[in-house]
């Protein structure tokens, strides 16, 4: 693991589904439950809208951690979206791990609209984990010849 700069702040992209997790993030906000400002949320209609290319793009552009949040399995607003997302993300994360990318840089969490506290806790924990890992160099470097 690389040495962590003292004032290092990671860049974290969180994809949140509109119906559960984005609402959970709103609830965290209205309950004033803080989490690091490094976390930036992108609203998607459903976790199944998250294309692996979004995640790879985020990493390649310098994100240090990417988290996908959706409704709990069984609670998807569109009934099955998060089940597809779960398979896709499972395979993608396993592939990134296979390529030697730190597996802690990616995460999927199911956060309901009622779980503002969970949302905040998850983001705090994820930010802490990614901060400990330090800057993401591996995905940025994994390339063909320019």
């Amino acid at each position, binding site marked *: 693991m690389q040495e962590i700069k003292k004032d290092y702040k990671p*860049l974290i*992209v969180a994809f949140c589904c*509109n*119906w*559960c997790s*984005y*609402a959970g*993030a*709103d609830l*965290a*906000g*209205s309950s*004033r*439950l*803080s*989490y690091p*400002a490094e976390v*930036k*949320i*992108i*609203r*998607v*209609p*459903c976790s*199944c*809208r*998250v*294309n*692996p*290319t*979004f995640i790879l*793009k*985020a990493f390649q*552009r*310098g*994100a240090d951690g990417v988290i996908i949040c959706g409704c709990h399995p*069984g*609670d*998807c*607003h*569109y*009934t*099955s*979206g998060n089940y*597809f997302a779960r398979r*896709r993300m499972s395979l993608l994360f396993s592939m990134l791990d296979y390529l030697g990318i730190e597996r802690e840089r990616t995460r999927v969490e199911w956060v*309901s*609209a*009622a*779980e503002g506290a969970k949302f*905040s806790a998850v983001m705090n924990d994820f930010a802490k984990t990614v901060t400990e890992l330090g800057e993401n160099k591996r995905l940025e470097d994994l390339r063909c010849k320019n």
Partner: protein
Amino acid sequence: MQRIGVFVCWCGSNIASTVDVKKVAEVLKAEPGVVISENYQYMCSENGQALIRNAIKEHSLTGIVVCSCSPRMHEATFRRTAESAGLNPYMVEIANIREQCSWIHKDMEEATEKAIILGRSAIAKLKLNAPLTSGESAVVKRALVIGGGIAGIQSALDIAEAGFEVDIVETSPTIGGNMAKLDKTFPTLDCAACILTPKMVDCAQNEKIDILTYSEVESVKGFVGNFKVQIRKKARFVDEKKCTGCGECMQKCPSKKGLNDFNMGLNTRPAIYIPFAQAIPNVAVIDPEQCLKLKNGKCGLCAMKCNVNAIDYTQKDEIIEREYGAIVVATGYKPISLENFNEYGYSQYKDVVTSLELERLMNAAGPSEGHLVRPSDHKEPKVITFIQCVGSRDTSGCGKPYCSKICCMYTAKHAMLIREKYPDTEVHVFYIDVRTPGKNYDEFFRRAVEQYGVDYVKGMVGKVYEENGKLMVQGADLINNEQVVIPSDLVVLAAAIEPSPTVRKIATMVTASIDTNNFLTEAHAKLRPVESPTAGIFLSGVCQGPKDIPETVSQASACAAKVIGLLAKDKLKCNASVAHSDETLCSGCSVCANVCPYGAITYVDKEFRLGGGKTELRRVASVNPAVCQGCGACTVTCPSGAMDLKGFTTGQIMAEVDAICKR
């Protein structure tokens, strides 16, 4: 060339106290494409909206970014604002700098920096927005009400009154719900049956209302205006059309030891029964667990006795499929189980009862025909002690954190009724606080204390134990600062109420949000209290939160008004954010249809020009915009990127990622 306007809201001090709104506006003004950037105290106010409207016209804006509260709050507002100024409503993006910024960060510099990034991200997305128009879908002019308590009954009656057809689906064999079990109602003390049963009869007689009792919702598909619902009509082993409710069968049934649910298990009923005299429908039902004929084939007395041949031991569950435009959830409540409250001796002593059991004990149609006696020895109790907040306002984890809201008033009612009818009975009430807001409520409570001499003791009860044939209630009297022990004949527990256990399953089926206490969530806690965030799903009664009868009825009517508003429309505007296939890229591989939960994708053979006068017939995906709900599952499964989602295009999301990740 794009001409973008940025509007930064202060939200009073909600945003402005943590985010330097002027700086955000100033920095975002320098973004390419931005021609105007303003800040204002309340963008959502009329003045704020006027500011936006004027700017759109004056600067010929092609799109706007509003940095404000969550889009879940005011996206619709600002879209209307844009539309009224002649801009396509989908040329609006919201940067959430309140819930996801000012409210969770304390450091002004940090929060301001984040707000700027969120603003940039919204601008980046907006640059790729395209004007969208909504399609339309027809509305099925029929409503489904799940639950036949007073909430469901009131909603159904109001909807039917407006001329629309309504089905009530109720799990138990009769409608009426908890209210049918009550004796008198506060604050007027009129009898519950006298005001409820006429409404039940109205339901039965209204030709617009179809009552499906002993039935459960099995599955819900579709969307607002077009739900397809499967209902399981459980076998009642009695032909509803033939049964006259004469009750002859009940007399003759030899298996009489079933617990009478209607009387809270305080007495027994036969295997074939009608829950209570005024049941709607007034039709018998056989409990298959208890019926000798159904269990081991030996008996058949009821069938022999029935003059109209209504008994049918071979009846099977039946699945009915119906279509609805709107669904009302009115699943109600039940008192919590008291297994976590052994200190009150509920499971140990017969004479420790819940308030709902007391209702039956005092009810003229109850097990003791209205004569208040102790369950153990059927003697009149001389000292009765009430314990309030049993499991309500409980943060220990044993009960519920919320106030059940109805207990203070019904306890005062019970105390008053007992003192009225049995003046020589001593009545004590242990309470934490007495909460009696409501019209004529506090006056009612004061009457119990002042006029009827009910002894209110402020304090919690530690335990209830038996000594010399008395139930000793040991508690604290906080006002006199002493421990008290009250030897009592009957102890009544005001058990907390919780949402019906079926509600979670139903919420999942209709994809409605639910909170940690299993109450359904409103679309807006204050402004849209009778709607679920899921379009077409409405909330009636206690399924949304604890409430008493007047409040339940008001909400049920409000809910009906919303349903009527929906059903009155012939067409609904569809979601404009739907999937769309780029036919020049689509290779017709058909994986997208595999993941579409709505069956919105079909394939057609289309002719394409190849140049040089040649054409080619090619299979391509086609999305039905009235059916597509815009989840985006297809967009990711499509390998060629032909499928995209309007409003959340791959390019837009990529642009957001880019903007956020730019260091």
